[in-house]
């Protein structure tokens, strides 16, 4: 059970949150301009790294806000949390250990 720092409410139990998968995937502004494979890439393809991963989470049973979490998929360490529209504090993508 993770302990996640909501950027608004502070540390809360994982049970209050919903994970929305990989963060920073923008909806193409003109979907018609995309080929079928390009559209499928947006729709279905996600990275699945072993290590640092940026995800978006929603504090569903709290303030209801979506935000970003940078999480280490191996250790579950949460490296940073940041609000929608913000970038991570540390832009490195190496292994923290």
């Amino acid at each position, binding site marked *: 059970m993770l302990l996640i720092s909501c950027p*608004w409410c502070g540390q809360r*139990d994982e*049970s*209050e949150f919903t994970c929305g998968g990989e963060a920073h995937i923008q909806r193409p502004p003109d979907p018609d301009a995309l080929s079928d494979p390009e559209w499928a890439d947006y729709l279905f393809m996600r990275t699945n790294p072993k290590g640092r991963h940026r995800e978006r989470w929603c504090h569903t*049973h*709290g*303030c*209801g*806000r979506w935000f970003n979490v940078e999480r280490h998929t191996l250790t579950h360490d949460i490296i940073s949390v940041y609000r929608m529209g913000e970038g991570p504090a540390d832009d490195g993508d190496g292994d923290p250990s």
Partner: protein
Amino acid sequence: MADPTVRDVPAVTLARCPPRGRINLRGNCWDPAFLAGVASAIGTEPPPAANTSRPAGRGVILWLGPDEWLVEVAAAAETAIAVALEDALAGLHASVVAVGDGLVTLSLSGPRSVDVLAKGMTLDVEPDRFPAGCCARSLLAKAPVLLYRPGDDLLYEVTVARSLSAYASRWLEDAALEYLQPA
């Protein structure tokens, strides 16, 4: 015989509060016009800090999210205050929705109220961690709730969707059972 003082103060008391007026308020708390509009309608600006509340006239305004609050007033005043808020916020990006009928408040009090809540909540609700005036949305068992501690007493208000109030109430009764001596 048991200590008479123990009999006088039940370890935990669960009660269903009378109906209240409640207004869900959305708006931008960095917009001075929004703050002023709210203040003109209910007598106070919405609290900007997470999980805090402010007295508002005879009621209270509770923080729900960075752009969302719950105004609690007397049941009879709900419509008038909703209209006052709508008027005061006309032209601004804001939302005023009366929700008093959709919510039920249960109160839990007594020396073991913290223990009863802890059974269903992952929130740290001990008195010094959840001080007077503190409020937070979370889960009680499997029901989404708004927890609010109005004062320094060991009294917590659990506000839950009307349809879930029977479940929440039964759940709390069951959780409190071990602190209530059988007759």
